[in-house]
């Protein structure tokens, strides 16, 4: 499959994520949109990794594991994202306990 398809898909996912973050007020949905953006990036990394592998094989370059770094990155990002999700959800739970809502527009007390 050409790389372009992956790129378009990733851009679409990322844009949906951005628009979601900007327009929604529910903290959980915003959180999901952030995850969506992260995974759009993951998708890009995997796609490019595959592309580089194919190019290296086609050109018969003497490289041990071509394109493996991208996939490594993806794993790292998934691990970090999992940790981040647990912290983020904990914050949202605490938020709900305090203000009985997960609407971010009630969060403007941070400025004081």
């Amino acid at each position, binding site marked *: 499959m050409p790389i372009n398809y992956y790129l378009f898909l990733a851009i679409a996912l990322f844009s949906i994520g951005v628009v979601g973050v900007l327009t929604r007020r529910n903290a959980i949905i915003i959180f999901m949109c952030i995850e969506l953006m992260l995974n759009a990036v993951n998708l890009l990394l995997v796609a490019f990794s595959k592309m580089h592998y194919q190019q290296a094989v086609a050109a018969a370059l003497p490289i041990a594991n071509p394109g493996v770094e991208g996939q490594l990155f993806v794993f790292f990002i998934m691990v970090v994202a999992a940790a981040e999700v647990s912290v983020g959800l904990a914050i949202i739970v605490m938020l709900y306990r305090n203000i009985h809502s997960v609407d971010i527009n009630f969060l*403007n007390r941070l400025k004081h």
Partner: protein
Amino acid sequence: MQASFKLAFLIPLLPLIGFLINGLGRNLLSKRVTGVLASGMVLFSFLLSLQVFSEVREGASAVISYFDFIRIQGLQIPFSFQIDALTSLFLLIITGVGFLIHVYSTSYMHDETDASFARYFAYLNLFVFSMLLLVMGGNYVILFIGWEGVGLCSYLLIGFWFKNPAYTKAANKAFIMNRIGDLAFLLAVFWIIIKTGSANYGEVFSFITTNHGTPKFTATDITIVSLLLFVGATGKSAQLPLYTWLPDAMAGPTPVSALIHAATMVTAGIYMIARSNVLYSLAPLTLSIISWVGLATALLAATIALRQYDIKKVLAYSTVSQLGFMFLALGSGAYLAAVFHVMTHAFFKALLFLGSGSVIHAMGGEQDIRKMGGLAGKLKVTHATFLIGCLAIAGIPPLSGFFSKDAILLNVFVHNPVQYGIAVFTALLTAFYMFRVLIITFYGSFRGTKEQLHHLHESPWVMLLPLVLLAFLSIAGGWIGIPAVLMEGADSLGQFLSPILPTLSHPISHNTELLLMGSTTLLVVVVIIAAWFIYRKKAEPPSTGILRVFENKWYVDELYEVIIVKPLTRLSAFLREWVEPRLIDGLVNGVGRSVQYTGRQLRFLQSGQIGNYVLLMVVAMVVILFVQFFIRK
């Protein structure tokens, strides 16, 4: 011969030690300790100077370098002393007259509190130190240190009674006017260093002698350097147009006037020009400017002195006038005569000032001669010594003033007969105003209050002793410079100074010389007799016509007030009232206000709406990416 001047560094060091002890311990030391310490230090310096003098008489001279004062790439200025005939002569004058005045001061200043008594002597010792540094310095930079030091001490001592605002104003005036000259002096030193690469006298003068006229040191350079040095001298030595500080400097204690503003500091300019005689001999234009400035100063100050009533003011203007004579001599190329007159003038003018101090002391602080009169009976010693001082300054043979003034007049006659005529006229004025003061003060009937008459007393012996010694010097001081026409080979001063200053030779026949000498002396005697008959009996009538101009000092102070002080204060007022609040404050406050305004506007960005923040973040990232990919190449 270098080794023989081993102790020379002690000559300025001792007064410095005296200054430190008296200055730091002014609250601890008693008057007796302070006075003895300060006078003793100067006495030791005098004894060392005598020893140096005796060695110099045998032909010794040396440049002693102690350490590097300034050392940078391409320029080395050592802290060095140059000891030769000129220096040793000035050393004797400064420490000798200085010692007598210190002794006199211990009695004159006795009414001061312990602390201010010590402060006075500390300043006086610091002055002696600076003056010695000035004449001993082996290059223009060390000379400049002394030059500034004496200016500082002059300021401190004029403003000694600083609680009186008029006195502090006089001190400021002296300091500021000296600054004008000092700036020119400093520029001259820089010019010399740039051109010759050195500030040491020996190197500078040999450079100038070998290179003058060549592109290395052109005629223009010589004129500029010599003129700048001369402007420096006009400040320090009170010549036109910077002389007005000296009469005001009489605000200081009288012994200070005697030491600083008559005998030593004001002659620093003459010392400096005599020291630079190699340079000046190559600058005929500057010399003629010097002679005319000196002559104009001498005449102007003498006319002012004719109608002053403050005894110290008369002496101050007389000093300005005599300094003018010295500059006239320098301008005529008669460096030797100028130095000779510096010496005799130091004797008789210090004597006159100390005498006036004795009178003021007896009168309880009164300085107006119109309120004195008939003091001769009560103040016998003061009167006798003051009379000797007057005879000496008037130029009656065989007193010292006669020989030095005659040497000047003779050289001026050879140089320029027109100037000679004016100079003789000025000399007659000198005799007239001095005897006017003498007669009004000491003869006739007493015009002060009963209380003052009752208080009237001769000063204690501590004050009279310096008077008597100075009177002796005023009589005999001139005998070392007797011209060949009167006694062959008696001009020991000329022989002594011949390694440094060009000796005087003139094409005048002995008969002409004797005629000039005799006629001048005769005229002086006539003028003295005239003064006697004018002031013997009746009081002076109010001034009219030109005499009013004299009494008001030619309105020079008023003129300076109008053309310099007023515009300057008006400019400062303009700066203060307009530029300061509108321009400077506007600028400074404007910066603050614009920051505040921007901050107020930017505050609205921080809304607390997370959506807004995220939107801004996204917009910013889009902008950054846009810039990254499409604009930056």
